[in-house]
């Protein structure tokens, strides 16, 4: 029976990474993910693994590139402004077909913003903050235990598809504490060998980690291969949760911390006779367009709620089209909407 | 002085002239023959003067020169 501990979101992500066999961790301090860095600093060296406090987030993501290219499981973590710095590195990681896990504990922005929770990095994560035609799998945990589960999943998906995978959490999830049953550590030796990695060309042709080709025909082919990979991911890795949507008239679309609050709103609304449901994307990329469209076809309204000016809202509208009304309620600046505030919005559209 | 000789890969030579300047025996010179890249390929103008010191090969940025040297009896 796995032990049950009261842990902070940041710590759970760190510990889950360790149990998923993360061999190297490189990061630069930034609020509100300090506890993740500290947990890795305390634990990685005593396990014989690598912890480096990098000189910047740019250095950290490039250390990730190197270690990933050398065939080990590797992670970095940061928060919004630091993630902006990593964008070139993420593009290189995607272009070079490297696996990596990147954690963003999102804070208020733009610019220096503040250190309160936010969801204003959705565009950056899902529409490409880096240059070029690439995608990154984006996982949005809603609770502290789920943050641990999705971190372990992130390493598996990264290796399976050789892509960067982002855990898109927020400052609230990072800081809050919940009882968690930590998963068992995986057996690192049972992981498949990465025969494409730079481990020293003994008994084989050299391996080259590369995202570059001057010949447009070759680069087109590289891009088509990337796109084919992304189509496979879209077919196979969509994840979402529906909560009381079966008989709903109106559904909230939300992810992360807001989805958690929205579950309370669903219960409050139903107590008042409003048939409210929740559609919660877990993979923000690949976004669950089809499942959301299916829900939209039988309800009047999909109300998107986010801690942003309306970023996931655009994907909701793409999914829903004319099938339902698609209003939006958002808060910015690190303000976390209360259940009552969200319920007020629901009532405006409940008719 | 031992005798030596060099073999210059005409395809690799870029006619940069560094080997000509490096040779202490004035063995090398531009041949006037252009390779398929359009470079004036270097050749041994005074092969009898070559001592196989390999200064030319050491400075050749294209590793276009192989050097041979007579074995000297012990």
């Amino acid at each position, binding site marked *: 029976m796995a032990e049950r501990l009261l842990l902070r979101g940041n710590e759970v992500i760190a510990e889950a990474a360790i149990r998923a066999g993360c*061999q190297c961790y490189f990061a630069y301090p930034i609020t509100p993910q300090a506890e993740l860095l500290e947990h890795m600093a305390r634990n990685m060296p005593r396990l014989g693994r690598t912890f480096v406090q990098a000189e910047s987030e740019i250095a950290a993501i490039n250390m990730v590139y190197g270690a990933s290219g050398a065939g080990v499981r*590797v992670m970095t973590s940061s928060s919004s402004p630091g993630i902006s710095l990593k964008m070139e590195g993420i593009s290189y990681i995607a272009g070079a077909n490297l696996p990596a896990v990147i954690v963003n504990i999102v804070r208020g922005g733009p610019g220096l913003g503040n250190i309160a929770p936010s969801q204003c990095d959705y565009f950056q994560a899902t529409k490409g903050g880096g240059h070029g035609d690439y995608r990154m799998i984006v996982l949005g945990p809603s609770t502290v235990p789920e943050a641990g589960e999705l971190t372990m999943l992130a390493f598996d998906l990264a290796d399976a598809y050789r892509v960067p995978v982002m855990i898109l959490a927020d400052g609230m999830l990072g800081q809050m504490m919940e009882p968690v049953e930590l998963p068992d550590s995986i057996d690192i030796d049972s992981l498949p060998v990465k025969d494409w990695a730079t481990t020293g060309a003994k008994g084989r042709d050299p391996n080259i980690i590369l995202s570059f080709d001057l010949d447009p025909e070759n680069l087109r082919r590289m891009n088509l291969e990337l796109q084919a990979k992304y189509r496979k991911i879209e077919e196979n890795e969509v994840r979402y949760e529906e909560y009381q949507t079966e008989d709903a008239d109106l559904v909230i679309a939300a992810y992360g911390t807001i989805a958690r609050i929205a579950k309370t709103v669903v219960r409050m609304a139903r107590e008042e006779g409003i048939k409210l449901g929740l559609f919660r994307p877990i993979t923000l990329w690949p976004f669950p367009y089809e499942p959301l469209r299916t829900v939209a076809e039988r309800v009047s309204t999909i109300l998107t709620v986010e801690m942003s000016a309306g970023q996931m809202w655009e994907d909701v509208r793409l999914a829903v089209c004319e099938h339902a009304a698609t209003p939006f309620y958002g808060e910015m600046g690190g303000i976390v909407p209360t259940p009552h505030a969200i319920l007020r919005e629901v009532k405006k559209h409940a008719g | 002085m031992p005798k030596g000789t060099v073999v210059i890969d005409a395809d690799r030579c870029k006619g940069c002239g560094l080997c000509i300047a490096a040779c202490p025996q004035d063995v090398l010179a531009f041949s006037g023959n252009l390779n398929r890249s359009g470079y004036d390929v270097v050749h041994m103008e005074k092969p009898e003067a070559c001592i196989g010191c390999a200064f030319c090969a050491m400075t050749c940025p294209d590793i276009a020169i192989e050097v041979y040297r007579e074995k000297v009896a012990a």
Partner: protein
Amino acid sequence: MPASTENMVKVFERPASLTDARFTYCPGCHHGILTRIIGNTIDELGIAERTIGIAPVGCSVFAYLWYKCDSQQVAHGRACAVATGIKRARPDSIVFSYQGDGDLASIGTAESIHAANRGENFTVIFVNNQIYGMTGGEMAPTTLIGQKTTTTPEGRHAEGFGYPIRFSELVAQLEAPVYVTRQSLHDTRHIMQTTKAIRKAFEYQVEGKGFSLVEVLSTCPTNWRMTPVQANKHVEETVSAVFPLGDLIDRG
């Protein structure tokens, strides 16, 4: 007509750890000489199967084509961070980065200094030709005062543009590095000295001694607007007066 090679032994040939690829460098550019020296060093130390090279951004972006070793082509300036990642992941590997003056001393300043400061056990080769070659001849941090480049068309002046950075001297201030040296390739004697320095730097890595930086004064005949022979003379007479040659530290 060259003499026959009968009764002769071959005393100089292409290093075994280099591929047959023809270098893409300009005629007379020192990159090729340095690449050959590195190939020889890898051969002599018998480390080809353990070596992981890093190709930067710049004229040597194609470095991954030259070696029969694993390689990673990396983002501009970040080679020392990538090398850190590789070496920490694979401590038994031999890792070297190979960077120009923009890559190492401009955009990569932080990564270069901090890898040195952490004493990462890898070898950094710094090609200092006082100009940006690949992008067409702009000012580098190491460009000389008065030197004309496309971004200093009247010649670099300190006001507004700063002085040439002596990067090896900066790194030599740090406690961790084990070997910091400045060499050149402008004549046979200096090619031989550079060969010894590169050999020492790689040996120190094999022996696990720590961080080495070998700065190599090189030429860029194309963007200096000189012939290769003139360019070598320029290094001998002018450049080496600004960037003194020799070992700055050797704690091996």
